[in-house]
């Protein structure tokens, strides 16, 4: 049985294409059932996010299965196959496994290390489980992907640092203030990056936001957007002591906050720390403000520096994560190959034979007046019984190996008799992680 994946992502297709082939997350039943209804396809899971659309499936016929899924994607979304094909990638076997491990671990994401993707895959898998389109192989496949992602998260620091300027600002603020829930943000001016940073602060849950601008109407308009309090620009100096975090991005040609003002401001707020983020070019805040006790000033360049260092660090961590992925591929394949029929038949026979031999020797050793030649005869007899008993299941297994649901039987047999196949015992990998 082979695992295949066909799909496209932000790396191979522009958003115009991606949105054409996206599946509505609430209506997965129809497409999932359509895919498993395709000839030669036994199991299917569809992952559809804003950055990727992927169909994972199991099949006996790799090339045919891939072709059918591609055709399905084109037909289902009414997109010409020739257009779609340019953007599609398809993997099977080890490459498909590597792919899903990397996707789940967020190594294939636009921002490496972003945590959302794992949740999205879990949701997609949830639909497949709900509509019964996934079976033994894909269940194990995805659970393995989840556990690999978890390992990557706990063993590397891939997601531990902020990789956008706005997030870096929030992270820094947390290093100064700890909790932000009782802190107030003051927005001076309204550059795009400034607004983005303000949004991040609001998401983190600051107590309040104030907005000021040279033109008061603009401040009012912005304040409405952020559910903030507008402040007259002339009142800046009176407002500053009330603010803990100051985001500034005015178009002013010179500094609007000076070192000498700050000492008074700090006195009025009892020297509670202040965090200034100057995103304006030319700068709004005199760099000497950083020299004032309990004032911490960062410019856009400083923040970019933080982000660059974090990205650099993330690359190092990503390399570690790739190594984990490679390690885990082998393990999964051991299990997958153990689902093949022949080794299972061998294991089943060995299992029975061991029992037979053990019982036989127990009987013989306790038998005092055993006639000569009886030992050989008993051996032949028990052997014949075992062969007769195993004949029927063995031939059924051999026959279904021609079809495509052998994994069901093989898995059942392995569980029923606790068989060890391919060197891997039945470990418990099926539990769902958070």
């Amino acid at each position, binding site marked *: 049985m082979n695992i295949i994946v066909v799909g496209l992502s932000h790396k191979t297709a522009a958003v115009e294409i991606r949105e054409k082939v996206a599946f509505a997350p609430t209506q997965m039943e129809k497409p999932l059932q359509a895919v498993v209804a395709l000839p030669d396809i036994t199991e299917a899971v569809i992952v559809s996010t804003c950055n990727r659309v992927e169909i994972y499936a199991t099949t006996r016929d790799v090339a045919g299965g891939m072709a059918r899924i591609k055709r399905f994607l084109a037909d289902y979304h009414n997109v010409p196959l020739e257009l779609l094909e340019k953007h599609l990638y398809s993997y099977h076997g080890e490459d498909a496994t590597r792919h899903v491990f990397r996707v789940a671990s967020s190594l294939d994401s636009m921002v490496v290390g972003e945590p959302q993707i794992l949740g999205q895959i879990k949701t997609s898998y949830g639909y497949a489980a709900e509509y019964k389109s996934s079976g033994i192989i894909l269940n194990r496949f995805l659970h393995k992907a989840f556990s690999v992602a978890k390992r990557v998260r706990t063993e590397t620091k891939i997601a531990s640092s902020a990789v956008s300027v706005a997030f870096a600002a929030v992270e820094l603020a*947390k*290093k100064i203030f*700890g909790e932000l829930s009782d802190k107030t943000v003051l927005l001076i001016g309204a550059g795009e990056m400034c607004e983005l940073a303000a949004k991040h602060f609001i998401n983190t849950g600051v107590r309040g936001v104030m907005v000021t601008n040279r033109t008061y109407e603009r401040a009012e308009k912005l304040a409405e957007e952020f559910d903030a309090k507008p402040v007259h620009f002339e009142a800046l100096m009176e407002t500053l002591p009330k603010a803990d975090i100051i985001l500034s991005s005015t178009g002013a040609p010179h500094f609007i906050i000076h070192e000498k003002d700050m000492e008074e401001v700090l006195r009025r*707020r009892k*020297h509670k720390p202040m965090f200034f983020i100057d995103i304006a070019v030319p700068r709004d805040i005199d760099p000497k403000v950083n020299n004032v006790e*309990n004032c911490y000033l960062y410019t856009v360049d400083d923040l970019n520096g933080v982000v660059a*260092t974090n990205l650099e660090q993330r690359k190092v961590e990503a390399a570690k994560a790739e190594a984990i992925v490679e390690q885990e591929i082998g393990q999964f394949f051991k299990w997958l190959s153990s689902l093949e029929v022949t080794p299972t038949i061998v294991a089943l026979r060995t299992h029975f034979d061991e029992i037979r031999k053990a019982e036989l020797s127990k009987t013989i050793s306790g038998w005092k007046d055993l006639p000569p030649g009886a030992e050989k005869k008993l051996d032949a007899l028990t052997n014949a019984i075992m062969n007769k008993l195993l004949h029927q299941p063995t031939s059924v297994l051999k026959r279904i190996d021609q079809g495509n649901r052998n994994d069901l039987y093989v898995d059942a047999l392995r569980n029923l008799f606790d068989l060890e196949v391919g060197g891997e015992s039945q470990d418990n990998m099926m539990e769902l992680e958070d």
Partner: protein
Amino acid sequence: MNALLFNSTLVIYAVATVIYLAYLVKPKQSLGRAGFWLTVAGFVVHLGFTLNRFLEAGHTPITNLHESLSFFSMATVGIFIMFERRYKASILGSFVMPLALLILAISATFSAVIPPLNPALKSKWLAIHTIMAFLGYAAFAISFGVSVMYLIQSHFLKKRRLGPMFQKLPPLDMLDDISYRCLTFGFPLLTFAIISGAIWAETAWGTYWSWDPKETWSLITWFIYAALLHGRLTTGWRGRKAAMLSIFGFVIMLFTFLGVNLLLSGLHSYK
């Protein structure tokens, strides 16, 4: 028995300190946890040592430098354990445990023999006065540790050096908060220790205050911490300024405790 408990404590603290220092270099959660539980184990053994010594001596075992330093170290570890649980910051251990270990190691260099108690010291005030004083000292020691952390963290923020060490150190506000809590805990204890000392002096020698070097330096220490607390409450001294003053206060406190005992002669010199 006493020596065994004492040496075990010393060894456990030493291992915990090494683990905490390793945590400083490699931020593995498991290291922080191991350091903490070892510290707790060490504290329990240390407590056992102190109780055992109390039973053997028949009085509060804070009568010479060996005992005082050991108790000082134990109180520091005890308060540290409380803060570690409250703030879930393993990194505190990297700064506090070396200090506690150092104090205990110095204690080991003094004679562990239990001397007969000077008749003047035979009083219920011995327990009240010394335990309060050393709990106060321990709180100041923690405040010293977090103040050092504060200065380092604030330096990183100002200079924009946001390396792994910066990532590990707690937020400035948390450090400032711990330092402040230590002061509000330690200062009343120091105050009561001085008052109970004065009352004890009156019952033992007939005078509340004799400007003995220990008394004088205690008063100086008290004034420094009083100024720091006053500054924090009224004019809002906080952050670097408060951290530096707390470090200064601790140095003076150490002199009051050790310097006076070892260098100056007086009623508190353990001779």
